[in-house]
């Protein structure tokens, strides 16, 4: 067993450059604490992100980090996990990264059920490129690319991910730090693909009613509504309120998690390697024609 690792043991010397007041600072702090609670040493953690403000987060931890391409954190993370299933693999990115440019990867990582934790810092706007419309921007939102108001229906990350069949789906906000920390920890501990949509406001380009102060007033813990996280249908129903209600907590947690893809792959490797070990030097023998 590893010695106790404090939250600050996961904090890297690199200083965050997010705007003061950004929700991501809270996410980072909650993550330090969740990681400390889980207790895996930083070198056994691979923290993969895409591109965007929030995707800078791996660099602020002492874990092995990989700040990849816009929208491609999930494919890379799956490669990492399959190459070494012993690693704890966490994926992070923004709403544009996960539900716009990288949206095509989400259903597939979910249907495979690779044991990853996916944290989306959803701020309903493109911050890094200065305030354009994002896939989760509400209809009617005026931005520099929707100056007369958006005509598009936003994607609903919670509903989508639930519909794809994810085994763990939660929503958090940095306005509730203890709640968010507990959710991240629970997501990491869930044996299978887990998703936490974190409503992490953009202080510079976000709407006033999306800021932490507003969250504090609006948020409704699902636990206080008596929601049973084992009830997938109820979860789908509640998830429909994305964009109007700010529910926090676990929407759905599969009460009997199916085996993960990485575990099944490993199991098959073990079965196929029973008996005499194969020599890589004899790989051509099968093509010899007597």
């Amino acid at each position, binding site marked *: 067993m590893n010695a106790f690792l404090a*939250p600050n043991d996961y904090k890297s010397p690199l200083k965050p450059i997010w705007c003061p007041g950004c*929700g991501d600072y*809270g996410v980072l702090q909650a993550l330090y604490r969740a990681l*400390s609670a889980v207790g895996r040493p930083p070198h056994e953690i691979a923290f993969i992100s895409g591109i965007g403000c929030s995707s800078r987060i791996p660099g602020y931890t002492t874990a092995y980090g990989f700040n990849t391409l816009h929208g491609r954190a999930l494919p890379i993370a799956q490669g990492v996990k399959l190459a070494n299933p012993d690693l704890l693999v966490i994926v992070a990115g923004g709403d544009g990264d996960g539900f716009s440019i990288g949206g095509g990867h989400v259903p597939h990582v979910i249907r495979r059920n690779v044991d990853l934790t996916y944290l989306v810092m959803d701020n309903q706007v493109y911050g890094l*490129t200065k305030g354009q419309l994002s896939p989760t921007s509400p209809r009617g939102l005026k931005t520099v690319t929707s100056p007369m108001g958006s005509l598009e229906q936003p994607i609903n990350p919670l509903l989508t991910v639930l519909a794809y069949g994810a085994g763990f789906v939660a929503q958090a906000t940095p306005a*509730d*730090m203890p709640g968010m920390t507990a959710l991240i920890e629970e997501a990491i501990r869930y044996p299978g693909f887990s998703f936490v949509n974190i409503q992490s406001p953009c*202080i510079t380009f976000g709407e006033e009613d999306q800021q*932490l102060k507003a969250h504090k007033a609006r948020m409704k813990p699902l636990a206080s509504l008596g929601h049973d996280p084992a009830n997938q249908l109820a979860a789908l129903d509640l998830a429909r309120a994305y964009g109007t209600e700010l529910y926090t907590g676990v929407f759905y947690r599969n009460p009997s998690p199916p085996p993960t893809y990485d575990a099944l792959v490993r199991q098959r490797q073990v079965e196929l390697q029973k008996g005499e070990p194969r020599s890589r030097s004899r790989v051509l023998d099968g093509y010899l024609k007597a």
Partner: protein
Amino acid sequence: MTPVTGIDFERITLRDALDLAVLIEEEARDRYEEFADQLAAHDTPEVADFFSRMARIEERHRTELLERRRTLFGSAPSAVDRRALFDVEAPGYEAARAFMGVRQALETVLAAEVKAHTFFSEALPRVKDPELKVLFQELREEEVHHQALVKAELARCSEKPDDSEAYADDPNAQ
């Protein structure tokens, strides 16, 4: 939502309470350090210096409490860790702003001290142990004292609203 989880104030020991108090100061110190870093990285040096000073003050409080704890209980291991508390005396992340003025920073500190005071006030009725009650009362009074100091500083501060933001460049695309 409570800033402290997993601690039963009816049963908490004096040692654990002291440890908790140390951690509350530690958290506040860390947050002010973070704020100082944030503002230093965003061209707001005066306020960064102010938050650094706040971090040093919180560190002093932490050290004092830690000494007391050592005197009373030596190096006996602590049963409380940082995961048990959130933003007791530390200002919330939403409080920081690029180009914020010293006045805004002072208001942030004041709000945090008020928050801490509320925490101790709310905890006190549940505390049964007399020794502990004394400690909590003392800590609450500390917060009153701090509030007074901050208010005094605010009074010395210009009433003029801060206009740094108005002079700053627009944000940069990355």
